[in-house]
C-alpha cells in the first residue's frame, strides 16, 4: 500500500465552506487502461484522493496526458476505477445502470467545445430539454424549466433563444446553452472540462463570471478541468495540480498559485508569459508516458530542484522513494520530499 504523505500548511482557507462531508470525493482512485498486444497498461489515474465540498469550485490543472480528463470521466461514472472508489454524498458510487442514471442527473458534465456538443439540427429548446426528457420523460412544466435554466445561464429573455439553432448563436451563447442543459436537472455538481478553451478571449470572461455566479446558487459545486492556471486564479477556491496520474500539490488557490511548494507547480507558474519571472523554468521534454511511470518520485527525472542540487539532502529519496498519495481534505498538501523536508 502507498504511504500517506503530505504536509499541512498554516491557515485554513477563508473561502472554504464549513461543511465536513464532501459532496463528491475520490478515495485512492486508480484507472488503468489495459495495454494492447502484451504492452504495459497505462496508469492514467494512479491513486488520487480529491474532495469537492458543497459550494466549492475546485480547479484540476495539468498538462495534456496527465490524467485529468480521465479523473473527470471517472467522477462522472464514465470510467470504472480499477482500484479505489468514487464517493457521492458519503455513499460509494454504484455502477448498475439504474444507479448510474440516477447519479448522472445530480452530477452533470459540461463539455469544452460547445459547437461539437450541440446538435446543429436541434433548437436551443430541444438541446436544453434533452436531459430532462431522458430523466423525466415529458414533464408538464418542461417549458418553464427550460426557460428557467436558460435565464440562469444568462440567456435572457429566454423566449428569444428557445427556437434558435446553434449556428445562429455566438460561441459564448452556445456555451451558455450547454451550461443550461446541465443546470436544468438541478445537479449538485458540475464537472466542466476546459469550459472556455475554445472560446474567444472576450467571451471567456463572461462564461467564467457565469460559473462564479452559479457557485453562489445554493448547493452547487463545480470541478473545472483545465490547463489554464489563469482560469483557476479567476474562479476557483482550491486548485489541484496533477502530474502523471497523481495530484502532486493541492490547496487553496491563494496559497498554491502565489507560493507554490512543488517544483512542478513552480515551473508551471514560471512559464506563464505574464508572470514576469526573471528565470522561467522551461522543463525539457514531454510529460512522461503513463505506461512507464518512473520509480521514486515520478517527477524526479524532470525536476529542476533536484537537477540544481538544491535537493541534495533528499536526493536519494527522490530517486528511490515514492512520495505517496496525498490525502483529501481542504488543507494545502504537497507530494514532494524536498518541499516536505522544510524549505
Amino acid at each position, binding site marked *: 500500500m502507498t504511504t500517506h504523505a503530505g504536509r499541512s500548511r498554516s491557515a485554513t482557507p477563508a473561502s472554504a465552506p464549513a461543511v465536513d462531508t464532501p459532496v463528491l470525493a475520490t478515495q485512492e482512485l486508480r484507472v488503468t487502461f489495459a495495454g494492447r498486444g502484451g504492452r504495459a497498461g497505462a496508469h492514467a489515474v494512479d491513486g488520487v484522493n480529491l474532495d469537492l465540498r458543497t459550494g466549492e469550485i475546485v480547479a484540476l490543472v495539468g498538462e495534456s496526458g496527465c490524467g485529468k480528463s480521465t479523473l473527470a470521466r471517472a467522477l462522472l461514472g464514465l470510467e470504472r476505477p480499477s482500484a479505489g472508489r468514487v464517493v457521492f454524498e458519503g455513499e460509494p458510487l454504484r455502477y448498475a445502470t439504474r444507479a448510474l442514471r440516477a447519479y448522472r442527473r445530480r452530477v452533470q458534465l459540461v463539455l469544452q467545445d460547445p459547437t461539437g456538443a450541440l446538435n446543429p439540427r436541434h433548437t436551443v429548446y430541444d438541446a436544453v430539454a434533452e436531459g430532462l426528457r431522458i430523466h423525466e420523460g415529458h414533464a408538464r412544466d418542461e417549458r418553464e424549466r427550460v426557460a428557467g435554466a436558460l435565464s440562469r445561464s444568462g440567456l435572457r429573455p429566454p423566449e428569444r433563444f428557445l427556437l434558435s439553432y446553434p449556428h445562429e448563436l455566438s460561441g459564448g451563447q452556445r456555451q451558455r446553452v450547454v451550461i443550461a442543459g446541465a443546470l436544468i436537472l438541478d445537479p449538485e455538481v458540475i464537472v466542466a472540462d476546459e469550459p472556455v478553451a475554445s472560446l474567444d478571449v472576450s467571451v471567456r*470572461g*463572461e462564461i467564467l463570471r457565469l460559473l462564479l455566479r452559479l457557485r453562489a446558487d445554493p448547493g452547487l459545486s463545480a470541478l473545472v478541468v483545465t490547463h489554464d492556471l489563469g482560469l483557476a486564479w*479567476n*474562479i476557483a477556491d482550491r486548485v489541484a495540480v496533477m502530474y502523471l496520474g497523481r495530484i502532486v500539490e493541492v490547496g487553496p488557490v491563494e496559497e498554491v498559485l502565489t507560493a507554490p511548494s512543488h517544483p512542478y507547480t513552480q515551473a508551471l507558474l514560471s512559464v506563464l*508569459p*505574464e*508572470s514576469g519571472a526573471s528565470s522561467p523554468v522551461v522543463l525539457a521534454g514531454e510529460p512522461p508516458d503513463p505506461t512507464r511511470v518512473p520509480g521514486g518520485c515520478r517527477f524526479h527525472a524532470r525536476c529542476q530542484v533536484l537537477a540544481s542540487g538544491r535537493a541534495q539532502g533528499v536526493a536519494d529519496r527522490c530517486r528511490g522513494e515514492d512520495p505517496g498519495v496525498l490525502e483529501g481534505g481542504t488543507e494545502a498538501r504537497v507530494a514532494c520530499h524536498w518541499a516536505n523536508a522544510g524549505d
Partner: protein
Amino acid sequence: MNYLEVEDLRVSYHTPEGEVPAVRGVGFGLAAGSKLGLAGESGCGKSTVALALLRLLPRSAGIRGRILLDGEDVLTMRWGRLRAVRWAGASIVFQGAMHSLNAVRRVGHQIAEPIRLHGSVPRDRVPQRVGELLDQVGLPGWRARSYPHELSGGQRQRVMIAMALACEPRLVIADEPTTALDVMIQAQILRLLDRLVGEHDISMLMISHDLSVLSGSCDRLAVMYAGRVVEEGPAHAVVTDARHPYAAALGSAFPTVGDPASRRAPHGLPGDPPDPADLPSGCAFRPRCAVVEDRCAAIDPVLWPVDSDSAGSAGRSAACVRVLDSAAPEDTGAPDGAETATTRVADPDTTLPTQESGAQY
C-alpha cells in the same frame, strides 16, 4: 529600410451576398531582425493579413494596397518570382500542425520538399540539411523517419518550424504557433522561436489571440479589430497601458496569476465582434465599448499618435476619438523612421475624423 512594408492593405471576400471586407486598410513595417505581434479575436482579419503577405488567399479574395518584401511588391510579382519568394524570402508557421502536415509522408520528406524545390542545397546533401534543421529545433535526427501521428503536438510544431527555416528565409510569419499547446510546451516553442529568430537575424510577425504570449515574444504589438489596427506600440506599453478600449479589454481578459484585482473577478467584454458585412457606422467597436460617446456613431477614427507628452507613449498610436482629442496637430508628425516596426499612421494633413465607415472601401 524595413524588410517588410505593408501599406494600406485591404482584403475583401467576394460572396454571394456581396463584398465582405475582412481587412480594411492595415499598414505596418518590420525591420530586419525585429518582431511584431498582431493580436485580435477570431474574425478580426489577422490571419487574412498573414495569408495576404504571401498571396496565399483564395481566388475569392480581392487584395489592394502594397506589400513590399525587401522592396518588391508581392501583389504585382510574377508567379515564378512569387514561388521563389515563398519559403526563401518569407515562410509561415501555421497553427494546427496536425492539419498542416501531410499525414502519409514522413516528416523528413516534408522538411526536404521546399529545400529540393528551391535547389538551394545540392541534391545529395539534402538529408544532411534535414538533419541539421531537426537538430536546430531540438529533435533527434531519427525523427526524420517518423510520421506526423507518431509525434506529439509540440514535436509537430517543431517540425513546422524546421520547415519554415529550411530555405533560410529573412521573415517568418508565425500564425498562432502555440495555440492548443500546453503551457510548458508553449514555453518551449516560444523559447525556440525566439532563439532561432535571434541567431539567424530573421524578422518575425507573430499572430495570436493571446496578448500575453505576444508581449513576451515581440518588440511591438498591433491590436486588430474588425479589419483594422486599433492600437500599436511597444509591446509592454500596449499590454499594461492600452489607450484603445478594445486593446485594454483584450489585455485584461488574461488574468495575471497572483494579481488581487483579477482574483474571483474574470474580465470579459460583452457582445460579439461585428459582422464584417454589416459594420456599424462610425467606430466599429462602438456597440461593445464601455466608454462610448455620442460622436462615436459619426466618427470613424483613424490610427493616430498617442499624445507624446505622457510617459511611455513614444511611437504609440491608437484609433479612438479620445486619442484624437488629446493629440494636438503639431504633435502628430510622421512616426520616427528609426522605429524597428511602425504602423503607418494616417497623414495628419488629410481630413481625419470625419470619414464615414462606408467611405473606407
